[in-house]
């Protein structure tokens, strides 16, 4: 490993030297790739699609270098009951569990059946309860898994709840609709290298959810001077249109989406608070055209 003797060295070499350390350890057999299970419950699969969009690290790096993906209903090769058997093969071993989608609880969980196991239907509720309590870490990926989200929106006929509500142990919450791949893969990488990252009061990693969108918004100076947009597409602050940036904590203005290309405000559309608890019901209305014309701000 290169010796790090200056700040410049630290900046340029630390990431590659860490990756090289990990590679060497895996080659020597000192560090085994940990098992990783991805459970999709009552959701839209948006988070797995988002995961595949990852750039640094990307999905190939995840699958080849970082972890041993034991189960993922969208990506694995095995099908049917043999896939479910592979899922349960992690019981009694060390594994990290990522869950996307809320947990349907009505009708004994029968609103969401994820497979057949030993001839019986396996509901999402049963699967997450069985595996969630045993995993070394549980990541609730996306707003539905973190807080109920769209799956639990009014009137919630399936009785969807967040993953934390059905598990007694701590669940690391990664809200976002979908969760940005960096937030998910970054948290996973931190767990693999250093253990659980620092979490806030709502069990979200501080490194991604530690500051509000409003405090990092490139249009903040318009807000501070009271220069507001009256309709979509204008380049000024969209507070009067109902932008939820001030109440949403993520790093969207900096990290952006789709390999760091753009984000809603960058395209002159307001933030709808998709990563904040209460989305979507409490973040409505997403757009308003009938508000007041104020002077100055606070």
């Amino acid at each position: 490993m290169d010796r790090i003797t200056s700040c410049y060295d630290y900046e340029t070499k630390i990431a590659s030297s860490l990756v090289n350390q990990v590679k060497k350890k895996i080659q020597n057999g000192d560090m085994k790739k940990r098992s990783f299970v991805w459970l999709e419950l009552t959701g839209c699969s948006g988070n797995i699609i988002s995961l595949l969009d990852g750039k640094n690290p990307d999905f190939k790096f995840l699958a080849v270098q970082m972890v041993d993906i034991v189960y993922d209903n969208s990506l694995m090769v095995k099908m049917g009951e043999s896939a479910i058997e592979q899922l349960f093969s992690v019981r009694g071993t060390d594994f990290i569990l990522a869950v996307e989608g809320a947990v349907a609880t009505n009708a004994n969980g029968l609103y969401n059946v994820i497979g057949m196991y030993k001839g019986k239907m396996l509901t999402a509720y049963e699967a997450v309860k069985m595996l969630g309590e045993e995993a070394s870490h549980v990541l609730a990926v996306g707003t539905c898994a973190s807080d109920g989200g769209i799956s639990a929106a009014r009137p919630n006929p399936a009785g969807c709840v967040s993953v934390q509500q059905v598990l007694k142990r701590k669940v690391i919450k990664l809200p976002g609709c979908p969760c940005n791949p960096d937030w998910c893969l970054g948290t996973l990488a931190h767990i693999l290298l250093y253990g659980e990252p620092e979490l806030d009061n709502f069990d979200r990693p501080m490194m991604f959810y530690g500051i509000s969108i409003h405090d990092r918004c490139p249009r903040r100076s318009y807000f501070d001077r009271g220069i507001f947009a009256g309709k979509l597409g204008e380049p000024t602050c969209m507070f009067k249109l109902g932008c939820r940036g001030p109440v949403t904590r993520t790093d969207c203005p900096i990290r952006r989406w789709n390999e760091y290309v753009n984000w809603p405000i960058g395209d002159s559309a307001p933030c709808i608070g998709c990563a904040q608890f209460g989305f979507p019901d409490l973040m409505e209305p997403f757009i308003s055209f009938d508000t007041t014309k104020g002077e100055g701000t606070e």
Partner: protein
Amino acid sequence: MSASQNIRTQIQSILFEVNNTMNLLYYVTSIEKKNNLLYKLSNLMNQLIALINLTEVKETVPIPAPTQTAQLSQRLFTRNDLLKYNGKNGNPAYVTVNNIVYDVTNNSAWAAATHFGLSAGKDYSSQFASCHTGQHVLERLKIVGRLTDG
């Protein structure tokens, strides 16, 4: 209060905040929280610079008033009156908590006069208590009157 006294008061309150923030930095252990505090410090410094630049401008330029109002306004609102102030169609957005009426028209958390599913123009004393107890939220809001049941 003359314009320059106004500026002096604002500068003093900002310096007070800078002092508090710097003290907090000693006690905070996480890097993210330290970074947040440093960011807050740099914002406060920018505000100070803006205010100091203002002292060079002639006194006829209008100065924004301090954000915290000490005087409770005597204006009385009934619950019915308050419904009009729902933030729509050019009306300001008012809410009442514990019988004091606050103006949230330009409050960043009340975009389009709504906050986590609540619309302006109503009494949110119980919702406030269940969510914000112990937080210094009300002290930063502009007071416009009191609620009366008359």
